[in-house]
C-alpha cells in the first residue's frame, strides 16, 4: 500500500474537517465545497480543487458523508454530498481535538499573556 507522508496526513485530516464543516449547512457539490472553503477562510486557504475529490471519496468511504446525483442551480447534473450522522459525530470530535491543539499551541507561543 502506498503510504502518504506525515505532512500530507496532517493536511488531509484538516481538509477532511473543513469539508465536513462546509456540509453542516446542507448538501453541496464539489464546486460549491471548494469555493466555500476558500471564501470562508477569506482566501487564506488556497486549495487545489482537484485534491478535494479524493478527500470526498475517502470521507464517503468512511461513511461520514453520503452522495447523490442531483441538478445544480444552473440545471447541470452534479454530484451532491451530504453529512451523515456518523459524519456529524466525527466533525464534533475533530473540532474538539483541533481546538485543544490550537489552545495548546497558543499557550506555548504566548505563555506570559495568561
Amino acid at each position, binding site marked *: 500500500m502506498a503510504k502518504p507522508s506525515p505532512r500530507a496526513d496532517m493536511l488531509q485530516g484538516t481538509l477532511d474537517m473543513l469539508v465536513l464543516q462546509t456540509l453542516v449547512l446542507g448538501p453541496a457539490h464539489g464546486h460549491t465545497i*471548494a469555493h466555500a472553503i476558500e471564501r470562508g477562510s477569506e482566501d487564506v486557504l488556497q486549495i487545489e480543487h482537484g485534491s478535494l475529490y479524493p478527500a470526498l*471519496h475517502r470521507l464517503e468511504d468512511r461513511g461520514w458523508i453520503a452522495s447523490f446525483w442531483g441538478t445544480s442551480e444552473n440545471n447541470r447534473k452534479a454530484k451532491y454530498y451530504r453529512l451523515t450522522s456518523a459524519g456529524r459525530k466525527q466533525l464534533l470530535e475533530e473540532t474538539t481535538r483541533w481546538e485543544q491543539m490550537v489552545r495548546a499551541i497558543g499557550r506555548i507561543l504566548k505563555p506570559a499573556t495568561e
Partner: protein
Amino acid sequence: MSFRRFWRRAEWDRERREEIESYVQMETEDNIARGMPDDEARFAARRRFGNATLAREEIYRMNSIWFVDTLVGDVRYSLRMLARSPIFTAAAVLTLAIGIGANAAVFSVVNSVLVRPLRYPKAEQLIALHQDAPGAAGLANAADGLNLSPSMYFTYAEQNRTFQALGVWMSGMANVTGLAEPEQVRTVSVSDGVLQALDVPPAAGRWLLAADQIPQASEPFGFSGFSGRSSTVMLSYGYWQRHFGGDRSVIGRTLTVDSLPRQIVGVMPEGFRIVKAEPDLILPLAFDRSRVVSAGFAFAGIGRLKGGVTIAQANADLARLLPVWMDTWSNGPNSNGRWYENWRITPTIRPLKQQVVGNVGDVLWVVMGTIVLVLLIACANVANLLLVRAEARQHELALRAALGARAARIIRGLLVESALLGLMGGALGVGIAYAGLTLLAAIGPADLPRLNEISMDARSFGFTLALSVLAGLLLGLVPAWKYAGPRISSVLRGTGRTASLSRERHRARNVLVVAQVALALVLLVSAGLMIRTALALRTVEPGFTNPEHLQTVRISIPSSLIPEPQRVFRTQNDLADRLAAIPGVASVGFALEAPMETVQPNWDNVFPEGKTYPGGVAPLRRFENISPGFLRTTGARLVAGREFTWTDVYGLRPMVMISENLAREFWGTPSVAVGKRLRWYQFSPWQEVIGVVQDVRQNGIQEKAPEIVYWPAMMGNPFAPNGAPFVTRAATFVIRSDRAGTEAFLTQVRQAVWSVNASLPLASVRTMREVYEESLATTSFTLVMLGIAGAMAMMLGLIGIYGVISYAVSQRTREIGIRVALGAEPGALRRLFVRYGLALAGTGVAIGSVAAAGLTRLMKSVLFGVSPFDPLTYMAVALVLIAATVLASYLPARRVAGLDPVEALKAE
C-alpha cells in the same frame, strides 16, 4: 479494502470523470460570468482544478488492492518468461508432475483406506468386539483375538448397558441350486443385531429381524452345531442384479440354499459389506438356545455404542458380564463355566475401522514416506534447473533492481514463477494420480482393504494443491535467496564474464545434489531390503511342492443334501476316485483346508500321554482333518511313520498324525513320537500317533508354521449322542497333475464331480501357485512400490549429478583452456571432474547411509529374514550409486578432452 469496490473501480472511475467534468463546466461558467473569454475561461477552470488525472489515479488507488494488482502483473510476466523457454518449463513441470502425481495417488489411497470413515451411518460408533485371551494362545490370534461363542453373544446382547445393538456373524459358503448351474456363493450368517448395528437400510424389502432368528427345527448336523433351521435370506445388490436383473418382485420368492428353500425378504444396497466380507447372501444364524454351550468361539462380534459411550466404558461393561457368562453357561453336566477363568479373557474393543484396515497401515505409511522422498528428489532437480536459469537471468534481475525494484518484489516475482511451475505440475499430477489409481483398481492387490472405496476426494485435491504450492514456493526460495540480494553493480559491471569458478556460487547446487544422492540411497536401500525379503521368502519351505501342478477345488456337501456323515465321507471318497481317474492326475486328496487357505480352522486342547498340565489347561493346538493321500498329494514330507489309509478311516481307528514341531515339543525327536498316544480333551479316548509330517506354513509364508494335529477326515465324535462320526462337509480337494489350471483339465474336473452328484458346485478353483503368490501379495506390493520409487530416485539423482558436472565443465571452459594450453593431460582433466562427481556422491552416500539406518527401522514389520541394517544391501546400493555416479560424471567430463584451447579461451 473491499473486494466489492475492487471489482467496481472502473465504474467508479467513470463516475469520477463525470463529476470532475461537471466541476470544470461550473467553474468555466463562473469565469465567463466574471467576463473572461470562453477559451480562457475553460483553461483557467482546468488550472484551478489542478491535475485531474492525479486526482483520478489517487481515487483509483484507494479502491485497488495493491498486492493483487501487482500479483496479476507478476503472474503475466512469469507466464511469458516460462513460455519463452519451453524446454526448461516442460522438464520442470513434468518432473514435478510425476513427483506430485505419485504423492497425490498414494495420499488418496492412504486417505481412502486409513483416514476416511467407513461407509456406515455414524461409523465412529461402530466397534469390533475384540477380546484378548492370553490363556487360550493359538485359539486367539493377534488379528482377530478371541472370537465370541453363541452363549457369549446371548449374555452380551441381552445384558449390556452400553450398546445400541450388538451381534455376531460368520462368513462361509453355501450352494445355491435351482437357478442355473449349481453355484457356490459367499455367505455371511448374522445374528440379530448385526444389521441393526451397521444400520444400512435395505435397497429393497426388509432386514433380517429377530423373528427370522428363531430356529424352526433343530439342525443336527448344522455347521457349528449351534444353529437351528431358518427360512429366510437377504441378497446382496450384486447377486440381485446378476441373477434377477434387479427385479423388485423377487421379494417373497424362494431361493434354494444348501438344498433348503428360503424366502427372500430383502436386498442390501450396492457396496454393502459386513466388516471386510462382501457376501452374496445374508442368512440368519438362528442359534438354537437349547443346545448352546459355553464353547464355540467362532463368531466375530460387532456392535454400535450408545451415543457418548467411550470404548473404555464399553470394555468395562463387557468385563462385568464375563463372570455372568461363566455362571450362566457350561459345556455340559460335568463342566463349570468358571473354568474359562484360565483363559484370562479381557474385552479389548477396537474401532471397526481398525479391524477393517488391519495392519495394511504399516505398508501404506512406508510407501507414503518413500513417495515423499521421491518428490523431494524431484524438487531438488527442478531447483537445480531454476538455479541455472536464475544465473542466466542475473543480468535481467540486476537491471530490474537498478531501475528501482525492491528485493521483496523481485523475490516475489521468482516465487510466483516457481509457484506457477508447482501448480502446473500439480494440475498434470492430478491426471497422473487418476491414471495411477485406475491402474491400482485394475490390478486390485488382494490384501488392500476398502479397495473399491479408493478415490480422490476434496481432501486429496486439497493435499495436491497444498503440495503443489509448497513445492513451488520451496523451489523458488533457492534461486530467490541466491540472486535477489544486491550485488547489482558487480553483476552489471562484470558483463556476465566468469573470470574463475566461484566456490560460493556452486555451493547451493552441490548441496542439492548431495541431498539427492542421500535420498536416493535411502530409497534404494529400502527397495534392496524388500528384494532380500522376497528372496528370503522364496527359500522358505512352505510344506508343499510344485504348487503350479497342484489344483485345488472346494466342494461342500450340506446336511440338507446328504444328512448321514458316513455317506458324506463315502461321497468324498468317490469324488477323490473319479478325480484320480482323470488322465494325467498323479494323486488326489482332500482336507478341511489346503495350506495357506484362510478357512476358519479348529483348535482345542491336546494332552500327550504321561504329561500333566497344571489345572488341566493344555495349550490349544490347531486341528486339520485330512483324507488318505492328502499329504502325499500336496508334497508334505513324511518325517516318520505313515499316512492314514482308507481302511483306517472307515474303521474309525483312534489314530492321529502330528506336525514335526509338535512331535519335538512332546517327545523330543519325531521318530520317537510314532506309537505314542495323545488325546483331545481330558476324558476322550487315547489316539495313537502313526506319523509325523514336516511343518507346513499354514498361515502364510511369513508366519511361523503352527503345531498341528492331523485327524482323519472322518473321526469318532465323542460329543454326538447317536454316535455319528464327525466329517468334514466343506473340504478342499487337491489334485496333483501337470495339467493343473488348464481349461480342458477343469472341464474334466467338473464332469468328474457332477458324475458323482450333479448338485455339487465347485468353488475356489485355483492352483496352489495362486494361493502361494497371494500369501506373498503384501511383500510383492511393497517391493513393486519401493522398486518404482527407488528407480525414479536413482534416475533423478543421476540426472542431477550429470547436470552439475556438465555445468561445472561449461563454466570452467576458460580455465580448462588455460590448463590445456599450459600442457595439462586431457586424462588428468577428465579425472578432475570425475573426482568432483565422486566427492559429491560419496558425501551423499555417507549422509544417506545414516538416514537409511534411521528410517529402515520403520520397515521392520514388512521385512522377513533380513535385518533393517543388512550390510550386504547397504554395500551393494552404495557401490551401484557410486559406479553410476562415475558414469554420470564421466560423460560430461569427456568433452574436456576434445576442447581446443584457442576456442576455449574465446568461449563465452
